[in-house]
């Protein structure tokens, strides 16, 4: 077991190194940051000096090595645009994105599984048909459109919820949270639904399909033949077997919730890392872009590691002691 975890972590590090290399090599093509940093009145000497100061005159492998060296120590350099340490900027912005992602992830998983199980058990009921049809809308509408629709209905027409920003935030040990104020919570609702709706419908359809498959299995029939109640059969025996494939997809989806919060953050003017990234691209702010990409890949890799461990927790067949006697 320990062996397995160590191997997985080792693999994760390799993945991170490769992602870093790919991301880093791409930055050489997005433009020259020096152009943006110095004004019109620059001399060749100024350019050379700044280039040397930023280490951009070094060969590419040396730049990458330095980046890694610093990154391991939590130092992602200084933003070219804002002139402040990148780590500080990201730490400031990350809570907004993480809170949004957590709430919409929770929304997607809980509602997705509940609806998925419901539509699988009541396969031919009218309610299931309504839900299944409704879910098609969730899958086919683009995120920004859903955001705008929600803003129109709940902010403009009904005036129930705010249309932008995080509301009031409270600072808890350097982490600014919106969970503790009423306006903060209200502000979370629309962006969270917007961000999670697609994942929710996806999880729901997946759970439904898996559950229908599991309900056809012999062990479900045998559980019924032993006189176990429908509740035990559906929610104990069937649901647990449904979860294994669902976890894979859900894990990847959670990663993408964080990574693709950019659109939602733009629509709702949410002060998260997604907005930060968009601005960084416009200004060729390489340190911020590099740090953001590394952050996202750390999260993806971390979630995948977690998914693999969850597999083992759920399915005893993967625990390696497969000796049949």
């Amino acid at each position, binding site marked *: 077991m320990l062996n397995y975890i160590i191997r997985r972590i080792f693999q994760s590090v390799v993945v991170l190194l490769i992602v870093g290399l790919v991301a880093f090599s791409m930055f050489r093509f997005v433009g020259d940051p020096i152009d943006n940093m110095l004004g019109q009145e620059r001399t060749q000497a100024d350019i050379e000096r700044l280039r040397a100061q930023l280490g951009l005159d070094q060969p590419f492998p040396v730049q990458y090595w330095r980046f890694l060296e610093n990154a391991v120590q939590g130092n992602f350099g200084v933003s070219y645009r804002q002139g402040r340490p990148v780590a500080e900027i990201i730490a400031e912005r990350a809570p907004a994105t993480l809170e949004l992602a957590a709430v919409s992830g929770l929304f997607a998983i809980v509602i997705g599984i509940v609806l998925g199980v419901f539509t699988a058990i009541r396969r031919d009921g009218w309610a299931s048909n309504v839900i299944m049809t409704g879910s098609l809308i969730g899958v086919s509408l683009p995120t920004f459109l859903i955001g705008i629709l929600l803003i129109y209905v709940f902010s403009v027409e009904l005036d129930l919820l705010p249309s932008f920003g995080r509301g009031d935030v409270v600072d808890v040990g350097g982490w600014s949270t919106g969970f503790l104020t009423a306006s903060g919570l209200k502000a979370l609702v629309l962006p969270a639904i917007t961000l999670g709706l697609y994942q929710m419908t996806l999880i729901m359809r997946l759970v439904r399909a898996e559950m229908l498959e599991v309900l056809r*299995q*012999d*062990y479900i*029939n*045998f*559980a*019924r*033949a*032993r*006189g*176990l*109640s429908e509740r*035990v059969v559906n929610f*104990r*025996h069937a649901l*647990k*077997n449904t979860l294994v494939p669902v976890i894979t997809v859900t894990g990847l989806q959670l990663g993408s919730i964080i990574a693709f919060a950019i659109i939602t953050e733009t629509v709702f003017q949410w002060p998260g890392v997604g907005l930060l990234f968009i601005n960084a691209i416009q200004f060729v702010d390489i340190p911020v872009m590099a740090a953001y990409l590394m952050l996202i890949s750390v999260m993806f890799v971390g979630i995948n590691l977690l998914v693999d461990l969850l597999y083992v927790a*759920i*399915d*005893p*067949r993967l625990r390696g*002691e*497969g*000796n*049949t*006697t």
Partner: protein
Amino acid sequence: MAPRACAGHPMSAILDIANLTVEFPTRREVFVAVDGASLTVEPGEIHGLVGESGAGKSTIGAAVMALLERPGRIAGGTIRLKNEIISGLDRAAMRSLRGSEISMIFQDPLTSLNPLFTIREQLTETITTHLSLTDAEAHERAHDLLARVGIPEPEIRLDQYPHQFSGGMRQRVVIALALCSEPDVIIADEPTTALDVSIQAQILDLIRELANERQVGVILITHDMGVIADTTDRVTVMYQGKVVETGATRLVLGKPSHPYTKSLIAAVPRPNVKLHRFPLISYGGRATEFRISDLARNWNKADTDSAKPLFEISGLTKRFLQKRSFIPSRRQYLVAVNNVSFDIRQGEVFGIVGESGSGKSTVARMIAGLYRADGGTILYGGQRVTGSGSLAWYRRQIQMIFQDPYSSLNPRMRVDAIVAEPALHHRLLSGKALRHRVDELLEHVGLGAAAGFKYPHEFSGGQRQRISIARALATQPKFLICDEPTSALDVSIQAQILNILKDLQEHLSLTMLFISHDLPVVRQMCDRVAVMQNGRLVEIQDAEALFAAPREDYTRSLLNLMPRLDGLATEGIEDQVEA
């Protein structure tokens, strides 16, 4: 013809099914799966329910349990348990009977246990559903049940998961689960079909013991006449939803009165005599004979120089990696085939028998080139076919027929494309000639050329196996590998397929490798037989000599496990017995 009167006393019956009719309404018509069937089960009795697939025997079991698949419904008749009518009870009342008064054992022990829960969890959950016991008492009972069904070290086994048990052990767990609250009736639906012969005997013994000891009434649903003959007290024979005959097992099997029962019994492969051909079930006019003669005319026959062996196999070894490791010495291997050597002569049917896990299929796969051997050589007509080099010439001459007729045909391909594919792949024929070959082959296996326009799902299991045979013949091979070709089929269909294979072998002078765990079938088919156990070759003998006088102890024990069919009627097979 009227069913025989029951031999017992109907008043003491614990389960009494009278005139049961089960319907499955579909959009177009109502399909009657069970049509006015009656049978009774007494305490301590094992009542066999036999018939071919589609006869409705499993549907009776499901109807008693009230677990009919939608949209099935009981359309008539009554089911009484201990003189109380239980057909038509509501769902809650039925659920309280299930598992407590009536239990069920399913066919495949590998899939009837939930893989994600320990044996203890599954047992105690069932126990506490039916009996009001404390947790400690429930655990105690779970422990006793495992011990009772013959699982050693129950204390350790309780906390293991199903995948840590072998097939036979899992079926014991399933039986323990069925016994959780002392049921009066157990319905066993093909409980040993998925198991090896030796395990099958143990499980049937266990069921027999339980029936005697606890006075449980058992309905044993099976298609296997051997199981019926060995285990049951009474038997009911079903055909297309109707009961055709019922009575004491010895009487029904020894002196069948209904023509269907007669032909069914005639089609059972006998362990004690070798027949030239299998008698086909003639009842209902379903038998389609196979016409071989035209096919033989334009067949490139092998030169029948039978002095030289077609295959010389020596030291064949295959191992599978079981535990990975960076360090080679810490890797663990399962040696599936261990230093096996034998020859296959020109024109013979060479059989390999053994229990599951003995390596017989692995040998076939290595010969077919599907697995690469880890050691040893295979010479085909003197030429080496293991190792590197192009084997296209060799693959054209050997073809394979697989066990499962459902998964061995691509469901998205039309039958004519399936049959044409091997010839097309080897660029043997094209255009009109190819179409002609395909039509001819389909005609010869008794399906008719029109079958080419259909898709595999439109055919039954036996018909699909005929398609497999047609496909295997498309390249005019010299050697056929048949890996359990009939074990998924009904006995009458099995007889047809085996007859086809026999004819092919005779008329086209094909050489065949025939793999099976079914010893009577092997006796009927093979000229020489190799016995395998745990990857090793135990012995090779001429088939008749092997069955008459096995040399090794293991072979003897295998032969002893064959169902004894001495009591079976011999009507219809006398003229087929080979001298």
